[in-house]
């Protein structure tokens, strides 16, 4: 590998070219078009072993646990897989939004498990294990069958079955600096509203839920913290 001087013109002496091995070691991201996805495969069956051995203690055997993080599995239907829209995202049927309800890109799931899981030992899974456990999660969500072997070859097919694949949009003004805001409040100064009523206040049972507020404010100044233990 030849080590060329970096930006020799503008900033002599600073930085250097990356070697291809270095890039390979760090360039781990997988894009929605699957650029970055390493070749390989893994079966649902093998994924179940990985899951039970390295994941279930936090996420539950069915990805349903709410102990360490919000549930991964649940809230999606066969119908959703058809439409690519998770119906439960409208209305109040589902108590929490699971990961699979929100997920619009299978690349995201693969990439994230590969880079960050298991939470306490990230970047320790083999490529096969990542394929396998991703397959198993997809299987738990009934997106792929029990005998499925997920691979770089068929992952684009899976994408087409993600329950919420059509659920994300960018029709808003909050990405671009010049984007159009949702609301248009006015800077009225006098007699702006007739009556004001209180629509919500802290419930009494929650008064001390954040600890004694008296101990969270300065002991001098214009105010004291309310003694919420009293």
């Amino acid at each position, binding site marked *: 590998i030849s080590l060329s001087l970096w930006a020799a013109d503008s900033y002599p002496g600073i*930085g*250097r070219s*990356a070697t291809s091995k270095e890039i390979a070691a760090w*360039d*781990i*991201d997988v894009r*929605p078009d699957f650029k970055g996805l390493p070749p390989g495969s893994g079966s649902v069956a093998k994924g179940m072993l990985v899951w039970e051995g390295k994941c279930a203690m936090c996420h539950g055997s069915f990805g349903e646990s*709410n*102990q360490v*993080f919000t549930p991964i599995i649940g809230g999606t239907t066969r119908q959703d897989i058809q439409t690519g*829209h998770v119906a439960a*995202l*409208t209305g109040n049927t589902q108590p929490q939004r699971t990961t699979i309800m*929100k*997920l*619009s890109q299978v*690349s995201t799931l693969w990439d994230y498990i590969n*880079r*960050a899981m298991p*939470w306490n030992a*990230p*970047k320790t899974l083999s490529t096969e294990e990542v394929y396998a456990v991703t397959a198993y999660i997809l299987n738990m969500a009934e997106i792929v069958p029990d005998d499925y072997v997920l691979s770089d070859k068929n992952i684009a097919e899976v994408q087409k079955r993600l329950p919420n694949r059509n659920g*994300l*949009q*960018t029709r808003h*003004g*909050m*990405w*671009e*600096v010049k984007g159009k805001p*949702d*609301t248009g*409040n*006015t800077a009225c*100064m*006098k*007699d*702006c*509203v007739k009556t*004001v*009523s*209180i*629509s919500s*206040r802290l419930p009494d049972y*929650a*008064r001390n*839920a*954040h600890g004694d*507020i008296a101990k*969270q*404010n*300065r*002991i001098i*100044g*214009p*105010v*004291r*913290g*309310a003694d*919420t233990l009293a």
Partner: protein
Amino acid sequence: AGVAARARAQDIGDGDPAILNLPEHSKTLGLPVASNPYGLPSRYEKNLQRRESPGLTRVGAASVSFCPLQGMFGIITANGLHFERHHQGWHDIDPQQHRLMINGLVKNPSVFTMDDIMRLPSVSRMHFIECGANTGMEWGNVAVPTVQYTHGMLSCCEFTGVPLSILLDACGIDKKRARFILAEGADGSGMTRTISIERAMDDVIVAYGMNGEMLRPENGYPLRLVVPGVQGVSWVKWLRRIEVGDMPYATKDETVHYIDLMPDGTHRQYTSIQECKSVITTPSGGQMLIDKGFFNISGIAWSGRGKVKRVDVSVDGGKNWRSARLETPILSKCLTRFNMDWVWDGGPALLQSRAIDETGYVQPQMRQLREVRGTKSIYHNNAIQSWQVAETGEVGNVHVS
């Protein structure tokens, strides 16, 4: 009102013992300089610290600690109080071993040590950082008592570092094809975020300095991205890599989190900008006014789209407003401190602040946001906050309609 007030109001006879009897520190020798080579706050300030909101998250290493805005002044956040948000915990990493890689659509994929980065041209700029989920707990009913928990995923510092544009230019960025960059952290989560190339080449900083010293470990020591005006999750900590690409990366925190659920069941993706917002920090929820009489209502305002132009304050729940004094400096994508005179007559009052930024955008009412976004979008709640002052002097977090 309270005990303190009654003590002051009584006849003090010859005078206050705290004056008539000289305090010990007036009659003794104090401690030498550099007793603390690195100084710390007074022992009487222990109440002002970062805190978690119980029940918000399940594990401390994928959680947030909130900034105690209820007791803070001006616009600068002392580094010890800067809010924290980690996805896989924080580390105090060895800066001698830290590297930044730039790859993708550049002529010369490169590696930089911290030595390299700190030799490059630097800028120093003051910017706020706000988590996209700040004030998220207010979308529904009132659930938290104080401004620390309603608005405390917010801090503001002077950052020093290399403009990202300098690094990208020097690596020979492919200007024709480059549309987005991916920023990636070195922590367990390998946090990744997509940033548009226009923004990346504008005011984004690869920063190592924060309020005159190096970044704190909790804030990404030795290197983080500063993305002015954009939600904190994009300010990737422990920054190890920038990739230049031609499409968004749809990372976990762009596809599963930091997506805003709309009433129609779709999620908005890449909602980056923190729109114009303000909040009164004194007096605020959970506080007790010590007495009737004069008060300095004080708060902060900010906008991810530029400078704050004006802040109005109402003490009657939005019926009538007066414009507050703005402290200087007033900087783009930075906090602005506002203050307003107020005499509390002992009756009930309803305090609100409303910021306007240089684009003319007026901070919305909660009702206006809900009309468009419903109540489940978690992120980007920049609604006007209401604090109710009761006759007892106690201030409560309320919603009005």
